[in-house]
């Protein structure tokens, strides 16, 4: 079995052409990026605004949990029935998958911003939008990134479903392999998905360290932070019930 797997990977045809591994990986990443980007545009602002106003937090949790419980394949079939074949149905199914973790990350990140800092910001005359963008969003970045990472990993793992509706991506190997009982091909496809997940996770972790504002940020140039080591990394606090008066 292992020998046949190695054979599958080492066949020259596997590494070029429209059915080759590089193409499939790029297709797979393309579906992922598209779905994550659409979900981010929807979920991040929505979560941030809800986290700021603290109105509708319960609804968010409910909807997010509801979405999480949906079976992706069932959703895909439903969208195909409604919308026909094409890129749209699998993308929508993946968007629904990516929304909950990002929504939760943005919501809890913004709502968990230090209440003292928010109070001070308002008290010194920041407008609500300035409080959100200048104080709460920077504080939310670690949790937002966590949500984005989690969503992306789920989408990478699930984007194989695109192959069910005749699209490409790494799901092709799994589905095609299954239909002709070519187990090395199936296993090879699954392995590539797993490796891709790990690589994506590592890349996102690294990127995250560059965009996190504050003392923990990684900087390529400029003065090193002499005291950075002494700083406790920020632990997000759960949103506390706010006094309604503001």
């Amino acid at each position, binding site marked *: 079995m292992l020998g046949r797997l190695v054979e599958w990977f080492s066949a020259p045809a596997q590494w070029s052409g429209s059915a080759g591994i590089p193409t499939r990986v790029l297709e797979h990443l393309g579906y992922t990026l598209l779905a994550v980007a659409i979900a981010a545009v929807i979920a991040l602002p929505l979560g941030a605004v809800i986290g700021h106003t603290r109105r509708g937090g319960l609804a968010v949790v409910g909807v997010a949990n509801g979405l999480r419980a949906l079976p992706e394949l069932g959703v895909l079939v439903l969208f195909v029935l409604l919308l026909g074949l094409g890129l749209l149905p699998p993308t929508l199914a993946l968007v629904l998958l990516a929304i909950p973790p990002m929504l939760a990350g943005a919501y809890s990140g913004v709502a968990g911003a230090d209440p003292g*800092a*928010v109070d*001070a910001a308002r*008290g*010194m*005359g*920041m407008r609500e939008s*300035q409080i959100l963008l200048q104080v709460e969003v920077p504080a939310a970045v670690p949790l937002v990134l966590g949500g984005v990472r989690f969503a992306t990993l789920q989408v990478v793992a699930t984007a194989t479903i695109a192959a069910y509706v005749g699209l490409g991506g790494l799901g092709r190997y799994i589905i095609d392999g299954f239909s002709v009982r070519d187990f090395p091909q199936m296993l090879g496809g699954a392995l590539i998905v797993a490796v891709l997940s790990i690589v994506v996770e590592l890349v996102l972790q690294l990127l995250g360290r560059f965009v996190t*504002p504050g003392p923990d940020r990684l900087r390529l140039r400029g003065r090193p932070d002499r005291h950075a080591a002494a700083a406790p990394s920020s632990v997000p606090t759960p949103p506390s019930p706010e006094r309604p008066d503001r």
Partner: protein
Amino acid sequence: MIEFRDVGKRFADGTVGLESLSLTAREGEITVLVGPSGCGKTTSLRTVNRMVEPTSGAVLLAGRDVAQGDPAELRRGIGYVIQQAGLFPHRRVIDNVATVPVLQGLSRREARARAAEVLERVGLDDALAQRWPAQLSGGQQQRVGVARALAGDAPVLLMDEPFSAVDPVVRVELQDELLRLQADLGKTILFVTHDIDEAIRLGDRVAVLRVGGRLAQFAPPDELLAQPVDDFVSGFVGRDRGYRRLGFLPATALRLVDLPTRADANGDTAGPAVPGEWTVLLDGSERPAAWLGPDGARHDLGSVYVTDGDDAAADAAGTLRGALDAALSSPAGRGVAVDGAGRYRGGVDTDDVLALLDRSAPR
């Protein structure tokens, strides 16, 4: 000037935070609101910058009702310091302080220059400006909080228990710092605390509040200590108020006595200058170093009475409290008086202090 006119606040849940508070905080003075927890101090403070909107009455700032106009605009003209400091963790200290100037429309460059100025004012080292808030001690964070409130150059400052989260030693430092700043800046400060000692130290006038924001007494600290209007206030200012009040009574009428002294640059304890008497040992620059007992043994000086108040560190300078402390803590039965520079001036006789006390007793 901040004027509360029958200010009432009933919260959405029905809690009455303030019944009807009327009070005037004078221009250029520190007005302290003090009272037990939940009595409405924070609520009244926050009606000034409209972080709380009163449900009745009005707050006037320099004669104008704060309820008119844009709250954000109003707040940019009022410094605000809170207990938790509330620094922005993702901004360096200098940029935290530059926040209000930027909001006021200064360029980032000008705002930073202004921030650097203010940081120096509150006694923060240049090196700290580039740090992150998490890299500061609690006391330093509070200083940054004060600097941030001063950076907008607002004439009015609201301070809500700004020093209560730091340890007592640092708290006293910060209080001294505030008094020093205030001597320069002459802001109109409304200061909330639940610590009566802090209120008495800082306040030009102190308002003691009961639950519901009911004003129990509003008076300068010495009057509060001398004549509490009722049991609530006297209970609040404490049993040792008589002693504390001494800190407000000048000891100008106190006559210093001569003590036997012996100059000694080498710390040599060969024996008393005057046999059988307590003698003050002076160092090379005339500062008292120790007592020499009648038997020639060295004893601690005890606390000294600083005659003039130039030295900000000497809290009780020139007051009866300083004189009494010196007399009572000396092993010789008589205290040592020094000038602002610490040079020997004379002795304080316990009987003289007590006689003065007798004459200044409130009737």
